[in-house]
């Protein structure tokens, strides 16, 4: 791969997906794109780049974007965010949304479905407290290929052993030979849509909880700021944003504030604003009990 070809791929990926590659990511391109080249019967990355420039290379270009932006995902990846979901976010929302009994959750980088299905499992476990609630989980991703896999919900024996407790496997999956399919009940809890975070996503509507993990790391700061700003507009004052373990908003934007003692968990800077700004018009009576949790602490700032 010549420096010229590398620059071409960098420019192409930045424009198509927002993916930012630094100067020394040749190895990443090679490991991800050689299989794409081979599949297209092309002998090298150079030949792949040449082919991408020809007319009618749309499918190949899509394959290149998908190969570069797809990442392995695990069930209950990093564990802590799901504990926060069950122990912090869900109780807060059960309280704050008690009147409307509606909850909308967005997984902004749903990949092959492990994250939205992990949330669906958490909700299933909390089922007794959620009777009569309407809960939506929307999973979006840039890649159609991963979304197809997410919708099918079929995972290899390796995939169901990384992060997934065996009891969850028994409870929520159906075995078919060496593969395991997530139950139709859980599949029915998640809707998938193709979405590029670089584009306008306001049509998805308002959410209470947004998981946007391990995707911002691929963007430059300007793009991160832009995306975070647009997510903030989709969250009510008491909504939650969850970022990846290695990600932060600090030094990037004032749109979100990290929650004390809850790593990876953020609330909009508007948290603590008058209840009337809340989407479902919850009354003061529905505000959380004054337990000394970071949630209420944030809610009483200002």
């Amino acid at each position, binding site marked *: 791969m010549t420096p010229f070809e590398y620059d071409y791929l960098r420019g192409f990926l930045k424009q198509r997906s927002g993916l930012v590659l630094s100067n020394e990511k040749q190895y990443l391109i090679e490991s991800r794109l050689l299989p794409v080249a081979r599949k297209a019967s092309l002998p090298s990355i150079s030949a792949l780049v040449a082919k991408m420039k020809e007319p009618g290379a749309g499918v190949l270009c899509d394959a290149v974007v998908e190969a570069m932006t797809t990442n392995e995902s695990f069930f209950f990846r990093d*564990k802590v965010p799901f504990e926060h979901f069950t122990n912090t976010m869900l109780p807060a929302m059960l309280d704050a949304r008690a009147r409307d009994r509606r909850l909308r959750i967005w997984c902004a980088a749903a990949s092959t479905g492990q994250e939205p299905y992990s949330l669906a499992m958490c909700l299933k476990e909390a089922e007794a407290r959620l009777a009569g609630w309407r809960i939506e989980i929307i999973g979006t991703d840039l890649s159609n290929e991963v979304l197809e896999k997410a919708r099918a919900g079929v995972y290899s024996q390796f995939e169901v052993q*990384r992060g997934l407790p*065996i009891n969850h496997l028994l409870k929520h999956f159906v075995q078919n030979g060496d593969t395991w399919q997530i139950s139709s009940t859980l599949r029915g809890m998640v809707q998938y849509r193709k979405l590029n975070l670089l584009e306008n996503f306001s049509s998805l509507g308002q959410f209470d909880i947004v998981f946007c993990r391990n995707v911002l790391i691929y963007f430059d700061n300007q793009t991160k700021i832009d995306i975070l700003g647009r997510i903030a507009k989709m969250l009510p004052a008491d909504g939650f944003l969850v970022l990846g373990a290695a990600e932060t908003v600090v030094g990037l934007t004032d749109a979100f504030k990290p929650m004390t003692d809850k790593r990876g968990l953020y609330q909009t800077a508007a948290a603590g604003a008058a209840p009337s700004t809340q989407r479902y018009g919850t009354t003061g009576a529905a505000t959380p009990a004054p337990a000394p949790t970071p949630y209420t602490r944030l809610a009483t700032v200002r």
Partner: protein
Amino acid sequence: MKNCLVVDDSSVIRKVARRILEDLAFETSEAEDGMKALDMCRKEMPSAILLDWNMPVMDGLEFLAQLRREPGGEKPKVVFCTTENDVAHIAKAMRAGADEYIMKPFDREIVEAKFAEVGLI
């Protein structure tokens, strides 16, 4: 330091498991069947047991049932590690008192994830 008893009739599997576990900062010991493992547990209960199912002399399930009846036998975290990969076997193992279950083939990441799941890491 936590110690893990690796029970498997294959010396190759024991060696692979041992390498992974030592990387995860476990002291390891080995047994090639359930009977030998039980003898070792009677001398000293390990923190964890990585347990094959099909073995000569005494299989993993029988070992687990006996272990859980021993004084202090409820203490070790038992993680099955077997080629038996169907729901019936998994359910049976869990009912018999296993804490987690690994379907072979396994790798380092799986062992790490499962051990973390039961609080060993």
